[in-house]
C-alpha cells in the first residue's frame, strides 16, 4: 500500500510527512513528527489529552486522519511557548500546581488557549463547560479552572 504524502503547517512551520491512510493525526504527530506532547488517553474522543487546533479550531487529533492535515494549519502544545518563554497559561499551571501526573496537561493547555482566544473573559461556568471534554484523573479540576480564570484576568490587564 502506497503511503500518502501530506504537506501541512505545524506550529507555523511548513512540514511534509508520509502516512498510512488510516493513521490519525495523533499517530503522525507522535510517530512521524516526534511531537510527543499530545497524549493518547483514550483514542476515542473522550479524554481530550490529544487536543490540537486545526485552522484555529479545537479538535481531538485522535479523531482526525493524518491525511486531512493536507493544506491546513495545525497547532500543538509544542507551539505554545514562544521564543523560549512559556505562555501565561503554562506559567500559571505551574504556579498553581494545576497538574499532577501531567497526562491531561497539554490537552488542557491547548484547549484553554483556544477558549481565551475566543472569549478573553469567561465565567467559571464557561470554563468548566468548554473543558468538559478534557478529563483529568488527578487534580479534581479545581486548580485547573482557577488557573485558567486567573490567567484570563492577568492577560486582560496586560492587554490594557
Amino acid at each position: 500500500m502506497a503511503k500518502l504524502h501530506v504537506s501541512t503547517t505545524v506550529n507555523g512551520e511548513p512540514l511534509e510527512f508520509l502516512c498510512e491512510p488510516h493513521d490519525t493525526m495523533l499517530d503522525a504527530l507522535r510517530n512521524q513528527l516526534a511531537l510527543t506532547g499530545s497524549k493518547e488517553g483514550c483514542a476515542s474522543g473522550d479524554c481530550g489529552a490529544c487536543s490540537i487546533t486545526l485552522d484555529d479550531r479545537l479538535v481531538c487529533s485522535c479523531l482526525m486522519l493524518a491525511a486531512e492535515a493536507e493544506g491546513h494549519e495545525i497547532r500543538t502544545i509544542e507551539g505554545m511557548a514562544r521564543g523560549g518563554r512559556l505562555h501565561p497559561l503554562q506559567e500559571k499551571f505551574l504556579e498553581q500546581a494545576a497538574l499532577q501526573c501531567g497526562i491531561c496537561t497539554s490537552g488542557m493547555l491547548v484547549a484553554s488557549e483556544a477558549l481565551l482566544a475566543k472569549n478573553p473573559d469567561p465565567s467559571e461556568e464557561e470554563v468548566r463547560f468548554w473543558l468538559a471534554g478534557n478529563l483529568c484523573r488527578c487534580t479534581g479540576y479545581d486548580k485547573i479552572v482557577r488557573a485558567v480564570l486567573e490567567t484570563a484576568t492577568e492577560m486582560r490587564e496586560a492587554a490594557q
Partner: protein
Amino acid sequence: MTDIRYVAPQTLDEAIGAYAAAGSAARILAGGTDLLVQMRSGAVKPGLIVDIKKVRELTAVEEISGGGFRIGAAVPGAVLAEHPRFRQTWPGVLEAVNLIGSTQVQGRASAGGNLCNASPAGAIVTVQGPDGRRELKVEDVPAGPGRTNLKPGEILVSFTLPPRPPGSSDAYLRMIPRTEMDIAVVGCGVSLTLKDGVCTHARVGLGAVAPTALLVEPAAQALIGSRLDDTALTAAANACRAACRPIDDKRGTIAYRTQIAGVLLKRTTNIAAERAQGK
C-alpha cells in the same frame, strides 16, 4: 494491515463517483467523530474513505431567500453556532446540534453525520447519488439504530430549513444522567408559531424513546389552537407519553423515560413559546 484508500475530492460528482464505485466497503468521512472511533475499535474496516470536506456545498451555511437556511451536511456544530443569524431563527435546532459531545467534538461533528436527534424543524434533506438528486423529509432519513434510508452511493448533501413566519421559534432539551457528555435518556424538540398568544403551528419531536426519532403529531395537535395553557400542555405531554416505545437500560427504565418525555415536552414548549414572544 488491510488496504485502505483515502480520497478528498473537490466536487460532489467526483465524491459520488468514487463512493458509488467502491460499493459497500466505502465510507464517507465528515467530522469523523463516529467513523474514526468505529475504525479504531475494528467495528468498521473501510476499503475507501471519501473525505467530503473539500466540497464547498457540503461545508457551507447559506441563507436562502425568504429567510431560510441551507446547511451543508458536513458543517460542524461549532461553525453553525458562529453563524450570526442562524441562532436567532432556529435556536432549538442549534441547541440540539450543540449538545453533541465536547468542544473538541463540536469542532468536527456534523449534523449530517448524526441525524439522530429529534429535531422537529421540518427540515428537508437533499441527497445525491449516481441516479441524481432527491429530497427527503429529515424524519425519513433514519431507518433504525445505525441504519439509514439512503441508497447505495448516495451522499447527504444539505439540510434546508424553511423561512419562518413572525412569532415562530423552537427549543430542544435533553435529559442525561450526567450533566455533560452523555447519551440522551430522552430528547425533546418543539417548534411553534404563536399569533396573539394562540398557537397556530407546532411540531413536536422526541428522541431516544423509540428506535428512531419520533414526530408526535397528536402532541402537536394538542398544542395547536390553544394558548398553551395547562390543559393543552397536559394533553400534549400525555400524547408524548403514549407515543414512547423506549428501551430499559442502565440510563433509564421504560417507566422513567416515558414519564420524562411528558415533563420535557412541557418545559421545551414553554421555552419555545417565550422565545416566540421575544422574551
